[in-house]
């Protein structure tokens, strides 16, 4: 479905739209307060962006260094060129260790690979352990936001979901009580799981270790209580030096939620005794994106979600209005790279206001990339042919002054003298909820000819 159609549906519930907009604006406001505490914020953004630029330009070397160090630390390293290979790696590892039940912490990469349905089909019980993820897993929904996966739901709906899936009393909607219920439920899952799966926020080339950031502590509960730890990492998640974390940990949580740092910043170098760590390095289209000069910066993303919280379109249309798993501004520059035809409407779901670019902690030029994708998708004829034709005609009218002036006179005459029903009908999308400007009898040029040119 096109973004505009899905968005219209979302907006038809005005109350919910207002609520969604305010909830996310609140996160943006918390972020603003947090960054104002850091005098050198803009310097940090520049540093992070430079580090990431270096990473992209030296990615093969850094990945090899990372791999060698990780192996030295006893980590089993696997490579996956696409989602299918990634999922097969996971399944094979689980089979090898006779795993029946897997606890998972949040990983957008495994979402991207559609890992859960694949594992379930193969008889593995998968438990998402991030509270938001667990809620949407019960509901069989994808995340609507990369940091706040259940932001589209009200507490009443969460209560209803727990009533259905956990058998709690009907009508409970207190977030504290609901969280306590989930805590007890998931504790049992942690204690009975055979393996834990996590994402990776940062893979550190010079130590071979990796870092995972969470607030709930679900990653560590899962990992330290099970015998097998599987971590999936996109190739772009590499940073060169451990001390680079000083820059990124200062940016990540402040941008994401306005916290000074995530509650847990866990550094995994080696497995604890009796445990194994498998790390899967995943490409899935990233190495292609690396070669697209206009879009390579999209790989800088550290998945903080700040561009979603600030985006006036995202806040009013919800995560599900975007056709790709990662919604919002960052999703809209990643999606066309993954599948241009399917996601062709996403780069147009923006006013190009540029707020995403200014809020981004690693300085991705998001709105410029949206503009570029619009050009590329149009050039590749992935947009509607009628729209392309209209633009072609406009381009002709505006290139010839006489034609432009004639069209202007005609348009003003039409708007000035037509009866209302001729102007305000369903073909006129402007006029559906807006009045057209009142029509002046003369253009500025006409006025100028009479009042200035005559005096020259």
């Amino acid at each position, binding site marked *: 479905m096109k973004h505009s159609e899905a968005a219209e549906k979302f907006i038809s519930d005005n109350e919910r739209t207002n609520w969604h907009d305010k*909830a996310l604006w609140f996160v943006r406001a918390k972020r603003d307060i947090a960054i104002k*505490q*850091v*005098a*050198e914020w803009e*310097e940090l953004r520049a540093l992070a962006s*430079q*580090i990431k*630029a*270096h990473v*992209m330009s*030296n*990615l*093969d070397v850094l*990945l090899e260094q990372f791999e060698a160090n990780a192996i030295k630390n006893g980590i089993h390293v696997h*490579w*996956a*060129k696409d989602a299918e290979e990634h999922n097969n790696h996971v399944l094979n590892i689980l089979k090898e260790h006779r795993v029946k039940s897997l606890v998972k912490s949040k990983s957008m990469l495994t979402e991207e690979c559609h890992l859960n349905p694949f594992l379930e089909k193969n008889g593995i019980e998968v438990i998402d*352990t991030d*509270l*938001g993820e667990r809620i949407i897993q019960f509901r069989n929904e994808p995340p609507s936001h990369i940091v*706040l996966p*259940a*932001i589209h*739901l009200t507490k009443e709906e969460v209560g209803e979901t727990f009533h259905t899936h956990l058998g709690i009393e009907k009508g409970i909607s207190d*977030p*504290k009580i*609901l*969280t306590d219920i989930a805590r007890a439920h998931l504790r049992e899952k942690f*204690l009975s799981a055979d393996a834990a799966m996590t994402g990776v926020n940062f893979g550190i080339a010079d130590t071979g270790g990796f870092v995972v950031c969470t*607030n709930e*502590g*679900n990653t*560590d*509960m899962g*990992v*330290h*209580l099970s015998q097998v730890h599987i971590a999936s990492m996109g*190739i772009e998640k590499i940073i060169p*030096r*451990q001390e680079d*974390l*000083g*820059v990124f940990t*200062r940016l990540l949580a402040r941008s994401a939620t306005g916290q*000074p*740092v995530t*509650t*847990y*910043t866990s*550094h995994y*170098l080696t*497995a*604890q005794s009796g445990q194994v760590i498998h790390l899967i*390095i995943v*490409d899935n289209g990233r*190495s292609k994106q*690396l070669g697209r*000069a206009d879009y*390579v910066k999209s790989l800088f993303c550290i998945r903080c979600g700040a561009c979603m919280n600030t985006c006036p379109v995202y806040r009013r249309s919800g995560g599900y209005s975007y056709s790709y798993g990662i919604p919002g501004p960052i999703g809209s520059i990643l999606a066309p790279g993954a599948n241009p035809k399917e996601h062709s409407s996403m780069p147009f779901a923006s006013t190009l206001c540029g707020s995403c670019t200014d809020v981004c902690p690693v300085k991705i030029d998001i709105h410029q990339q949206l503009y570029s994708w619009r050009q590329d998708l149009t050039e590749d004829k992935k947009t509607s042919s009628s729209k392309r034709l209209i633009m072609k005609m406009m381009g002709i009218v505006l290139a010839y002054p006489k034609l432009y002036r004639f069209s202007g006179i005609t348009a003003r005459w039409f708007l000035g003298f037509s009866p209302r029903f001729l102007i305000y009908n369903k073909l006129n999308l402007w006029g559906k909820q807006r009045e057209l400007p009142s029509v002046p009898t003369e253009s500025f040029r006409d006025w100028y000819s009479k009042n200035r040119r005559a005096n020259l």
Partner: protein
Amino acid sequence: MSRESILAQIRKSKPELVGLPILPECHIVEGDLTEQFKKTLLLVGGQAIEISEGDIELHIKKMFGYLKLTACNDGTLNFSNIDTCSIDDPRELRDIDLAVLRCRFGVAENGAVWLTDSDLSHRALPFITQHCVLIIPKNGMVWNMHEAYQRIKQENYNGFGVFISGPSKTADIEQSLVIGAHGPKSLTVFLTT
């Protein structure tokens, strides 16, 4: 092999080499590290208490005396009633009410405390416990994460290291903050003098 094909594709696609920037030594900030730490920890749902080494036991009894099972990584403190070192399976830590852990250092700008494998009998301990007390020397404080990673580099760590900033929390239901998601429901840091 996917490894080779991925690396080959990267070599083909990657942009021209860009230099790696030099990181700031540490952004100098004027202010009281202890006060900043206390203020920030409060903000993230924890609390920091300045205390003299000799008063730790008494204070813990006063604060957490009602709790049954307490683990501690320091044998000189005399209130632990479970020896976690004798436990093999970390799942057996499930009933622990309180973990008292001596740690390395704290970070003033974000209220985080650094601890590593060598501070832990089990990695699960600071997560599975219902309440957590972390002890750091008051003078063992760095200002920010740049300084923190410089210190980590010097001291090195094996295996596992974690920054903990406050108790576990979530805001996944309607953005309302709830303390005590999966890990500890409270986190207290003792700053010892």
